[in-house]
């Protein structure tokens, strides 16, 4: 599918044709059709520059970092630390030492729960999350609460899928020791007013962790403007490689936290009697990290900057509005998540047809969507549905692909008529 199909693309500042040429996988076939990839909230596709960066690293730059005195180790260390600096600039952190590399958002959240959480939570204390969290921002806190005898409190959402801010404020009490919330909901697309929520928590002296996995691909994020204490995200949802993610933490907080895992690189000195830990961020990076992943993440950041994050956001917003309008016009369709402020995600159900069946029929047309509970079962329970179909957009998607989705849904109606 190309933009030359006779469907008008909105006049956009983006050269989407050119962008589509940057992604080799968009020119492959699925089930005999041109691939229509609308599962970007699960993972985005990778541009050639990111793929090339990985190959180039292994072909010319591979060595272990922070160890050898030899040429390649020095070069790899430099590449790795340049990657950290690129992430620092990407989210406007004050110091590169505030950027901890993890395997992804999930590991970043677990890191905070198991270090900051274990240090600061005692029996009777509370962790406050929201009803729209991904399992990865629920379960680490449940584990922590179980260990410490603490309580997990959940701020509710309304029928549009928006956080009820007054209820959030009420739950923010003297026992709250940390707040953890998503910047953008993966199941509903809701953009939370995180800056305001963080200010509310800070007024009570409570630090905030933001799960930014679904935000960084779509919104320019400035952790200092938000005043986030912790901000977690993954490279693979923002055109980067899998297996690498980021935990941003304010320096004073990171420095006061105990290490997460023990091993090489996170130590200053080791004897059998006593080990002293390395300074941040290395204290939290035990073992050989995903060096190629960091190089790939840097390439992804540069790729997004070259396009312009605001332009990406505007293009995706146009697609989301177009798709919402087209799908809402179809009979029997109910959009799940109709918040005033949304990004990228269009979740829906069709009357009397299970999302799993819809997914299979769309797949036969080469259309990739996610069907299921999206690792957000409490959100499904809130809307009294077992699952949804989720289409999620990236910078390379076009209106013609939305039209393909609409045609696919008509096919669903034919089969189940």
């Amino acid at each position: 599918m190309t933009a030359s199909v006779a469907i008008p693309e909105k006049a956009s500042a983006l050269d989407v044709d050119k962008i589509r040429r940057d992604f080799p996988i968009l020119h492959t076939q699925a089930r005999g059709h041109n691939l229509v990839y609308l599962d970007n909230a699960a993972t985005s596709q990778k541009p050639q520059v990111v793929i090339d960066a990985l190959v180039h690293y292994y072909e010319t730059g591979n060595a272990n970092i922070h160890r050898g005195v030899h040429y390649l180790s020095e070069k790899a260390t430099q590449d790795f630390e340049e990657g950290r600096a690129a992430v620092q600039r990407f989210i406007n952190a004050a110091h590169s030492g505030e950027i901890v590399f993890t395997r992804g958002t999930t590991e970043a959240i677990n890191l905070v729960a198991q270090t900051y959480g274990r240090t600061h939570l005692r029996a009777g204390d509370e962790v406050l999350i929201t009803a729209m969290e991904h399992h990865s921002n629920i379960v680490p806190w449940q584990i922590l609460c179980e260990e410490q005898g603490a309580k997990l409190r959940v701020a509710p959402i309304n029928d549009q899928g928006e956080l009820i801010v007054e209820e959030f404020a009420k739950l923010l009490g003297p026992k709250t020791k940390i707040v953890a919330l998503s910047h953008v909901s993966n199941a509903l697309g809701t953009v939370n007013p995180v800056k305001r929520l963080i200010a509310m928590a800070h007024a009570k002296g409570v630090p905030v962790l933001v799960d930014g996995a679904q935000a960084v691909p779509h919104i320019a994020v400035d952790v200092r403007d938000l005043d986030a204490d912790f901000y977690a995200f993954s490279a693979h949802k923002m055109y980067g490689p899998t297996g690498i993610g980021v935990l941003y933490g304010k320096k004073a907080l990171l420095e006061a936290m105990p290490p997460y895992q023990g091993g090489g690189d996170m130590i200053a000195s080791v004897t059998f009697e006593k080990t002293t830990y390395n300074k941040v961020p290395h204290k939290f990076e035990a073992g050989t990290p995903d060096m190629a992943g960091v190089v790939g993440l840097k390439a992804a950041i540069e790729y997004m900057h070259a396009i312009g994050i605001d332009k990406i956001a505007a293009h995706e917003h146009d697609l989301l509005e177009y798709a919402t309008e087209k799908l809402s016009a179809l009979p029997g369709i109910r959009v799940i998540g109709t918040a005033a402020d949304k990004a990228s995600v269009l979740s829906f159900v069709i009357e009397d047809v299970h999302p799993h069946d819809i997914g299979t029929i769309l797949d036969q047309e080469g259309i990739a969507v996610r069907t299921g509970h999206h690792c957000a079962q409490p959100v499904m329970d809130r809307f009294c549905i077992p699952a949804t179909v989720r289409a999620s957009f990236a910078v390379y998607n076009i209106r013609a692909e939305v039209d393909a989705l609409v045609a696919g849904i008509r096919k669903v109606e034919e089969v189940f008529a």
Partner: protein
Amino acid sequence: MPELRDLYQEVILEHSKAPRNYKEPAHTNHKAEGYNPLCGDRFTVYLEMDGDTVRDIGFQGAGCAISKASASMMTQSVKGKTKAEAQKIFARFHDLVTGHTHESDEQLQADLGKLAVFSGVSEFPMRVKCATLAWHTLEAALEGKQEKVSTE
């Protein structure tokens, strides 16, 4: 290329819209719950066992067209059968939907009857768990197991 109509045969669609034995039989003495955590499909299978024989069977729950039709047609096929016969039908059905069968259509029809319409599932590996969820649940009910059955 697998064809959609091979999967969504008329009989399957019809059973998914109007499932048979969608009830809890009055004299239920065995039951089990089945759950597929990946898609949220959830069924309870109820049995009235008379010694070794399935005197009555019913099911309730929610799931996709494939899982619901499979549950519905399962209840029809094992009603009146002994535990061993029901287990044998499941074994043959499992072979059918996972593509581990090389018999002629006639033989399949003889062994499985109407259940042969599920042969298309074998072309859709992601849907095998949908087709077998109710059967795994039946197996647990026959064994009198108490814990919830999960496809994972």
